[in-house]
């Protein structure tokens, strides 16, 4: 039927795939980087410190990603000072007219909130003995955070974070709502041109499936490496007599 066209559309799908990969990896990396300091603030006992972070994660985790994306791309344009800055040609604020950077901003803000909460949970479940041992060794607070608390929490954080990575990959599929031609966008274009929904979306779905499988494999490898101490020991079982 339209498989010939699907082969012709290969470059469009490939460039869409590249956009999807870029959006996923950059937002995950930035989100994780920002989540580390935010999680440290989140577990602070002081209200003034943890409050603002809690408000941020509450808003992001309570609203749809689509709404966040729309707020960044269309919503901010409502402010007159931003329109004025665009008129003046402010190079940083002009990025908020580019759908790619808007999507990147929204996705990063989204994943950062979820990552912050996952990491904060891991920090809260630090065994008390580890902190005690750090103090007993006379470590300063900074050293204890750097050498004991963070490495230990980041390890416990990997299994829960692996879900977030997959969700983020799938989350990027809505960026075609702000005119970006990602993998889903390429499929929508193909559908619009040839009226062939099965070929268009099954092709995209298959590629997403492949990407998910690759990501899941990479995460399992990371777990094997960093959680090696938690793997069950191989014990020789005495043969039943």
């Amino acid at each position: 039927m339209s498989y010939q066209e699907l082969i012709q559309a290969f470059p469009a799908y490939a460039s869409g795939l590249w956009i999807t990969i870029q959006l996923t990896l950059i937002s995950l990396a930035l989100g994780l980087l920002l989540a580390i300091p935010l999680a440290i603030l989140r577990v602070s006992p002081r209200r003034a410190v943890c409050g603002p972070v809690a408000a941020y994660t509450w808003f992001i985790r309570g609203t749809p990603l689509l709404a966040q994306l729309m707020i960044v791309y269309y919503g901010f344009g409502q402010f007159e000072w931003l329109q004025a800055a665009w008129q003046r040609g402010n190079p940083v604020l002009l990025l908020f007219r580019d759908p790619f950077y808007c999507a990147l901003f929204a996705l990063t803000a989204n994943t950062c909130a979820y990552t912050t909460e996952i990491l904060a949970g891991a920090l809260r479940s630090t065994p008390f003995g580890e902190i005690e041992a750090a103090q007993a060794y006379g470590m300063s607070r900074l050293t204890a955070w750097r050498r004991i608390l963070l490495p230990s929490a980041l390890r416990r954080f990997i299994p829960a974070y692996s879900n977030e990575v997959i969700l983020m990959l799938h989350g990027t599929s809505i960026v075609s709502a702000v005119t970006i031609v990602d993998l889903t966008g390429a499929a929508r274009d193909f559908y619009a041109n040839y009226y062939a929904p099965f070929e268009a979306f099954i092709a995209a779905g298959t590629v997403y499936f492949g990407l998910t499988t690759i990501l899941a494999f990479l995460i399992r490898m990371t777990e094997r490496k960093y959680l090696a101490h938690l793997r069950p020991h191989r014990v020789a079982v005495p043969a039943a007599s």
Partner: protein
Amino acid sequence: MSELHEYFPALLRGARVTLLLAVLSVLLSVCLGLAGALAKQSGSRMLVSTATAYTTLIRGVPEFVMMLLVFYGGQILINHIAAALGFHAPDVNAFVTAVLTIGFIFGAYYTETFRGAMLGVPRGQMEAAQAYGFSPWLAFRRILFPQMMRLALPAAVNNWLVLLKTTAIASLIGLHDVMFVADQAGRTTQAPMTFYLAACALYLTLTTGSTACLSRARTRYSKGVREGRLQ
């Protein structure tokens, strides 16, 4: 603010659509999830592999792609069937598409949730039910279900929260939910931020409310359990 006042009834209608979509899809997905979990526990090779294929496939493909496939593909499929049977093809409805797609997708997540919870119920419980001569359905209803709900509750509520937020993508296939209304109103009045934030307020109310309900439900389902307290 006057724009918000003017569009308030439209937003409320949108909110009703969002809520109805979320509730119907969660009902469908809980049923699918229970069926999937029972299938995975059944031991029958065909049922187990069908359920495994279902959960693996769903968790590998984004919701939006699935929804586009069902929405546009479903129309063509219905046209073909209608042509073969010789009657006029009905238009595929965005609401029905959204309920079916979201229900089907989250059914896979509920399958995993319920499977994990079923494993947490001691085997002896079901054996005792059998010994008392309970029919399988009665044993499920009176023994397995109440005990597994306690274990499934946190993850089940989390699935519901994700589902609720996922309903927003139905606005992209033209369903007049709260997100769609907010988008349209924002474009007409040139005040998009106001309306997106109004939509967000609805989602926040629903998500925060659901979390509050979780703690009440937890008390209800944990009635028979004595919990250890750390000093």
